[in-house]
């Protein structure tokens, strides 16, 4: 069998599965969602699973991750995840308002504390039924399935996820934390669809934690659409801590209106394959997007951060800092596109990607891309791939600090620039600790981590 046929077959497998479970998918979903579903499925049929020939997937080969015979979870199951499992998440001490999802499905649970009046944090499926008007206005508006096969596949299978709505001028002092668990009895393909809407002047800090609770294989394809109204403020933190048999493909689309500020911060501690797509459209004047990320990779892990910042209006600012530490045979990629359209005069766009290789066998691909159509623009980018500075290492050792500790200090120092971008102090301290433990070779996971990540 030729490779081509094999690849086509792989997409066919998912297409066939869709056709088989179509009725279940359509059942109970509102018309709007189903209309999108139908269209998205056609889009997926046209595109298939992206291959390395696709410029956007040049450095990440998804195919092996689609190969296993996955089970699908198209219907809400009786909730199994033990609520105490939230303590498997490493930031429980944080004074946050906590909700969870399991295998992409939102868990109805009692949560201590209250959200400010009018704030909704709910199951997307439930909200589609209860307030279809509100959801329809935003659903599938910025996550486009005709140009992105993974969005198409997500939209075709989408049933649930979380929905967060913050009304006009409402400030959430307490961070909101969403812990996403993967916990299925068999190897599973998981689809999660999220929607976040901040009305004008709203202000919220959202912390997302991705975890696996057993050793089964997972492929998680998540899509999140985020609408940020005028003068609104969003902090969006992601902690990825899944075992090495997990492939996590996360696509986040952010649309910002004028005077809004969004800070996204992704910490990838563990995972077999992690692909983070971050697309920011600066849709109003004087908007600011801060897009930060750090990843720690060893063994055969692969992390690919793919960002696109599109400046559409004047006086915008974007600021990207991504750093990776790679050991063993780990592979990493960073692709960062900055697109400044004609109208977006006086744009300030900055991008930086630094990588530290700890072994000769680890590899890193880094690809900045600038498309500048406006003339009054300040734009800069820089990328480095290097090893630990031997001179600095010697300096530390010459003061009596042993080699391992000195290396650890240097790695910590390297990452610190990204860690300190976290504005929630309790979270920053916690992440500082996780970074230290991760670099130290400990599993930066839950205190009572029971599983082996050696796979």
């Amino acid at each position, binding site marked *: 069998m030729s490779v081509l046929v094999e690849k086509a077959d792989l997409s066919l497998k998912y297409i066939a599965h869709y056709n088989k479970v179509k009725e279940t998918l359509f059942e109970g979903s509102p018309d709007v969602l189903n209309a999108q579903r139908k269209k998205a499925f056609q889009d997926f049929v046209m595109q298939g699973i992206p291959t390395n020939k696709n410029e956007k997937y040049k450095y990440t080969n998804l195919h092996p991750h689609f190969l296993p015979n996955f089970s699908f979870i198209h219907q809400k199951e009786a909730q199994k995840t033990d609520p105490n499992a939230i303590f498997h998440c490493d930031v429980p001490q944080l004074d946050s308002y906590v909700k969870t999802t399991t295998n992409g499905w939102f868990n109805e649970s009692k949560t201590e504390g209250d959200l400010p009046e009018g704030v909704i944090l709910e199951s997307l499926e439930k909200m589609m039924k209860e307030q279809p008007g509100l959801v329809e206005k935003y659903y599938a508006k910025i996550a486009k399935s005709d140009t992105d096969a993974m969005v198409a596949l997500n939209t075709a299978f989408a049933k649930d996820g979380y929905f967060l709505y913050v009304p006009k001028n409402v400030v959430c002092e307490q961070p909101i934390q969403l812990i996403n668990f993967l916990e299925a009895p068999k190897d599973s393909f998981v689809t999660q669809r999220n929607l976040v809407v901040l009305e004008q002047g709203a202000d919220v800090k959202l912390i997302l934690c991705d975890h696996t609770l057993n050793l089964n294989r997972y492929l998680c394809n998540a899509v999140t659409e985020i609408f940020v109204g005028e003068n609104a403020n969003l902090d969006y933190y992601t902690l990825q801590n899944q075992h090495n048999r997990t492939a996590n493909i996360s696509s986040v689309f952010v649309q910002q209106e004028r005077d809004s500020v969004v800070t996204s911060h992704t910490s990838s501690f563990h995972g077999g394959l992690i692909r983070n797509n971050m697309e920011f459209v600066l849709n109003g004047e004087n908007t600011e997007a801060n897009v930060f990320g750090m990843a720690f990779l060893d063994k055969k892990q692969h992390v690919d951060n793919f960002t696109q910042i599109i400046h559409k209006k004047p006086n915008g600012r974007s600021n990207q800092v991504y750093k990776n530490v790679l050991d063993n045979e780990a592979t990493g990629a960073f692709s960062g596109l900055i697109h400044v359209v004609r109208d977006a005069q006086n744009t300030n766009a900055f991008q930086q990607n630094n990588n530290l290789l700890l072994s000769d066998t680890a590899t890193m691909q880094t690809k900045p891309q600038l498309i500048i159509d406006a003339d009054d623009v300040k734009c800069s980018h820089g990328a480095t791939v290097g090893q630990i500075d031997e001179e*600095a290492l010697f300096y*530390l*050792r*010459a003061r*009596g600090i042993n080699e391992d500790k000195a290396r650890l200090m240097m790695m910590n120092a390297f990452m610190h620039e990204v860690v300190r971008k976290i504005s929630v102090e309790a979270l920053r301290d916690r992440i500082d600790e996780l970074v230290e433990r991760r670099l130290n070779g400990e599993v930066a996971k839950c205190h009572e981590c029971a599983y082996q990540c050696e796979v």
Partner: protein
Amino acid sequence: MLLYSSFERVGEAFLKRATIMLKIKNLYASVDGQEILKGINLEIKPGEVHAIMGPNGSGKSTLANVLAGKQEYEVTAGEVTFLGENLLDKAPETRAKDGLFLSFQYPVEIPGVPMANFIKTAVNEHRVHRGEKELTAGQFLKLMREKMELVEMKTKLTNRSVNEGFSGGEKKKNEIFQMAMLEPKLAILDETDSGLDIDALRTVANGVNALKSPETSSIVITHYQRLLDYIVPDFVHILYHGKIVKTAGKELALELEEKGYDWIKSEKGN
């Protein structure tokens, strides 16, 4: 019996310390296959100050780095004992904890490693090595304040990353501050005076002198007589083309100041 034998060991160590600090015998070292040190011999006793002078490129920093344990320098022949033990077998951190300190000619900047964290780790590694308890946060701060005063270092510097954005003078003061914190037995000062104005020079020299004792020794690498006005050497050596070509008392430094190195060069041919 037990008491007796441990007594004996203490006595032995004391004896060693009393007689010899550092002994370099016929030391050859090269970097990238190029021979730089060509048979160095040097003996330093406790309490002594040795100045090493010599034109640029003669191998002074190489000698200092070989003693501190920098890996890129390959020792091809000879031996070095420090307090009676083979020095060259030991990792740089062990040498440091045994009491050898190098004040670098060019201290590196280490962005992201906070000064206070760095120096606290270093001090505690030394203490653990000596079988002492780590310092509490309070004890550490007190010690740090005391030593910073000694070298007149600005407090704000300890809030920064190691040497990051420090001026040339601040970097050199920082070296002496670290030396004061670690209280070494043998300090090697590699051109600590270069680039310092006279006030800074005096401060640095005072810092060094404050740590002087009959049990400690120093090697002062310098081009200038002026530092030696403050730190008075017992011996002055001239290192030239990887060899010590002349050794004398402190008057040799004055002679060099007057005549330069040319007479050495012509005396030694080329």
